[in-house]
């Protein structure tokens, strides 16, 4: 049985998890103050996932940058590919929270969505 110490990143509490696992299968877990910790530990041992947040250019908006995120966590290994996909993306103002900027980014099933509502520049 392998023993792992890890810090749950699901919320700012950052629970310190002690995990005993065998072949990616969790046998024992302690330190998690909620059930998300268990899911996190399992994912982290087998296929770590992250929500990616960044910005894209906003043309004609009150603010030049539109913050965006993946609508759900994507494989950690794809973070930089995801950022690369967005490097030359620009959208026209206005933008609203939830606007889909890219559908199914990198075939992950996650969309890139806007996280701020920004109107047109006066």
């Amino acid at each position, binding site marked *: 049985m392998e023993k792992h110490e*890890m*810090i*749950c*990143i*699901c*919320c*700012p*509490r*950052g629970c*310190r998890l002690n995990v005993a696992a065998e072949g990616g299968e969790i046998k024992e877990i302690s*330190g998690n103050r909620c059930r998300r910790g268990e899911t996190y530990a399992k994912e982290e041992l087998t296929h770590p996932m*992250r*929500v*990616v*947040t*960044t*910005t894209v*250019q906003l043309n004609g908006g*009150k*603010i*030049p*940058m539109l*913050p965006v*995120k993946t609508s759900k966590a994507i494989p*950690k290994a794809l*973070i*930089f590919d995801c*950022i690369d996909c967005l490097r030359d993306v620009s959208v026209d103002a206005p933008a609203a*929270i939830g606007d889909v900027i890219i559908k199914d980014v990198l075939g992950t099933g996650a969309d890139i969505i806007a*996280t*701020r*509502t920004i109107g047109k520049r006066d």
Partner: protein
Amino acid sequence: MKNVDIVIVGGGPAGLAAAVSAKRHGADSILILERDASLGGILNQCIHSGFGLHRFKEELTGPEYAQRYISLVEELEIPYLLGTTVIDITHDRKVTAVNSEDGVIEIQAGAVIMAAGCRERPAGAINIYGDRCTGIYTAGTAQKFVNIDGYMLGKKIIILGSGDIGLIMARRMTLEGAEVKAVIEIMPFSSGLNRNIVQCLNDFGIPLYLSHTVTSIKGDKRLESVTVAEVDQSLKPIKGSEREVECDTLLLSVGLLPENEMSKRADVVLSGVTGGAVVNERFETSTPGIFACGNVLHVHDLVDYVSEESERAAKYAVDFVRGRTYAESDIQITPGSGVRYTVPFKINPHNIEDNLVIRFRVSTRYSDKRIRVLINGEPVMSRLEPALVPAEMQTAVISREKLNAIPDIRDIVVEVGD
């Protein structure tokens, strides 16, 4: 001069939550004064996720969290002024503000809620020896440049201080193509949240040097290198441990200071520990009718708690306007062993309507210790904590029933013990 029941200084998370709560508690007139061009405060530049898990039971980014409250403010038709800076508040709550449209605005407030947040400690506050070149920014300024204005600041980056904004910016600059060479922390532990060390540093292989500091800065016009040295237990650089690290940008994440210039003008007594006002259980400062909540009161690590605190403060601000009186809050809550400060600072148990919520921070790292609240020397609450760190705000809750069961409360102590 116009009269407004509740004037709220600051339209960030604290001010927005206070406004919504004041409205729901029936305030007749409310006015939010916001210095920036939009509501939302610092959340607008915090584009990362992790906000709202307590409040909304979902993981939101900063702008999304802000929008939840901005939408409520709009729905409830609460008035606000943008681009408006408060330049004076008197002890009898005359508020003077300026903006480019109305010029000088004078308001007689029924109650004032201070919700102006905090500022970053700047380079000048930490006295680093060396050249005065460009390329040195506070982490929050860098965050605004990158996330709002769309400017990249440099290519080779050193971050001094491991506060959360510094950690978040280590990841952000990496994603934007910079090489973040290291995060340097003078203390033997990080001042940021553990989850940020994992997802902002470890995920990207960015080293964190604990017990290290930057001892000098070199650069003709632009920053060229910094000298990094290990420090001893008294935080003094160890001779011979220095090495020069090439970089073009130094980000500082060395602490936040509540912004209380206006509070001082209104004769509000400030705490030497938090830099925020000394408040009672109603979040009222030493100046009657002036309340404080959010980061202007004490620096929070979770915005969810800012919202909660601000909602409570606003309720009492409305009570004040209505002339409801409370018993004097003359019982001190004393930070005992291992506790840096508590909010509130003093209470009167008769004023507690539901629970007494005490927020506090520990002074150093502890493992397997108990958080205890003692009333008249007797423990009324005790909780075993596997790990306690100064970066995480702690909470102790004492129910009203428990408080009422003690007939003559003389002193309350919050401590860390075995």
